[in-house]
C-alpha cells in the first residue's frame, strides 16, 4: 500500500511537468514562495535579462548636454576560492542582485498598460544598484541611466540581444 502511495506521489509530480495549470500570483505569495518550491534549477536556456548602465559627470553649465560614458555591463563576476564553500557573502550578494534584475524584467513583462515602472519596488532597487555601481567605478558621476537587455547566449557566445527598457536619467548623488 505504501509503495503504491509513493509511486502515485512521484507520478503526480511528473504530471505537473506535463500539464500546466494557472499561475497564482500575489504579493504575499511572492514573498513567501519558499513555502511552494518547484525545485526547477537551471532548467531552461533562453533570454536572460542583463543590466547595462552609463554615467555622466555634472553639467558644466545648466544648458549643456550630458556627456555620457559608453554602456557598461553590471553583471556579477567574482574570483573563486575553495574556502568560499564556508563563507561566500560577496558572491551571494552579487547573485541576489542579478536575481533582482530578473525580477525587474519579470515585473516589466507583467506591467499593466499605462502603468509606471518607476513605482515598482524592483525598479527602485535596481536604480539604487545602478547608482551605487556607477559611483564605485566613477565616484564623481552625477547621473546614471540603465537598460535591461534580454540576452540570448549560445555555447560559443552571444546570439541575440534586445533592449527591453531604458530608464530615465537618474540623479546619482
Amino acid at each position, binding site marked *: 500500500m*505504501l*509503495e503504491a502511495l*509513493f509511486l502515485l*506521489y*512521484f507520478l503526480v*509530480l*511528473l504530471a505537473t*511537468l506535463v500539464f500546466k495549470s494557472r499561475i497564482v500570483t500575489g*504579493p*504575499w505569495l*511572492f*514573498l*513567501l*514562495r*519558499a*513555502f511552494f*518550491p*518547484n*525545485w*526547477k*534549477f*537551471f*532548467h*531552461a*536556456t533562453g533570454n*536572460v535579462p542583463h543590466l547595462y548602465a552609463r554615467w555622466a559627470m555634472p553639467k558644466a553649465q545648466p544648458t549643456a548636454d550630458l556627456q555620457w560614458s559608453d554602456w557598461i555591463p553590471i553583471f*556579477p*563576476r*567574482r*574570483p*573563486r576560492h575553495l574556502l*568560499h*564553500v*564556508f*563563507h*561566500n*557573502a*560577496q*558572491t*551571494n*550578494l*552579487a*547573485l*541576489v*542582485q542579478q*536575481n*533582482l534584475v530578473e*525580477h525587474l524584467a519579470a515585473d516589466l513583462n507583467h506591467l499593466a498598460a499605462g502603468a509606471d515602472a518607476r513605482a515598482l*519596488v524592483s525598479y*527602485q*532597487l535596481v536604480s*539604487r*544598484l545602478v547608482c*551605487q555601481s556607477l559611483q564605485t567605478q566613477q565616484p564623481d558621476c552625477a547621473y546614471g541611466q540603465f537598460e535591461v537587455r534580454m540576452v540570448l*547566449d*549560445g*555555447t560559443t*557566445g552571444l546570439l541575440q540581444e534586445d533592449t527591453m527598457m531604458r530608464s530615465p536619467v537618474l540623479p546619482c548623488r
Partner: protein
Amino acid sequence: MPVSSAARALEILLALSLLLQTLEYLRIRQVLTVQGLWAWPVQRTDIPPGAVQNLLDLLFGDRAMHWHLLLRLPVLLLLAWQGSNLALAVFLFASHVLMLIRWRGAFNGGSDFMTLVAISGLLLAQLVQLGGDPHLAWRAGLWYICLQSITSYFMSGWVKLMQPEWRNGQAMTIFLNAAIYGPLPMDSVLRKPWLARAGAWAFIGWECAAPLALLHPLVALVFCLIALLFHFLVFWFFGLNRFFWAWVVTFPAILACSAQRVFW
C-alpha cells in the same frame, strides 16, 4: 542510520548551515541599512499596508535586524551543542521566514527553500513530540525532510530531461559560461560537446532516479555521496555554497528513512 542518530546529525548540520548563513548576513548587513541598496523604506511597499507592515517596520529596523542576526548565533550553538526544543525550533522558523521576507522572498533561491524544509521538519518533530512519542515525532520530521529532498532531485532531473538543450549537452555549457566565475576558457575541456552531453546525462539520470535511494540503505549512501560531489561542483562552478550545506543537512534524513526498510 538509526532515527536518533539521524536526528542528532540533522541538528548539528542544520546548526552549521544556518551559522554559515548568519555569518554571511552579518558580513553584508550594511546593504540592508537605510543607506544600503536593499533599504527597507523602499522595500516595505512590497507589503500591503496594515498591521503586518507596521510590525515589519519594527523588526526590519537597522538596529533590530542587527540584534536579530546576533541572537541567532547563540541559538545555533545551542542547537548544535544540546539539540532542539520547541522554543528553539519556533524561533528558527520565524527567524528564517523573516529573513526571506527581508530579501523579497529569497536571498539564495533554492538553498533558502531547502533550509526552510529542514527547519520545518525540525519544527514538525518538536510539535509531534508534544503528543509524547519522540521516536514517532522524529520519524515524521525526518520523513518530511527526506521526501522534500528526494522530490527536489527528482523534479530537477525530470524538468531537465524535458529540455532538448539539456539532452544534447548545450545547456550545461551555456549555464557554465554565464556563471559568476566567468565564461569557460576557450580551451576548457567542458566545452567539448561529447563531455557536456555525457555530464548532462549523468546528472539527469542520477537526479531522475533519486526515489530509488529509498529502496536500500546502501543505495541511499551511494546516492548521498554522489550528491555531495554534485553540490560541490555546483558550488565550484556557480558559487552556490549555501546549496551545498542546505542539501547536506537533508542527508541524515535520507539515510535514516532508507534504513527503515519501508519498501522491502
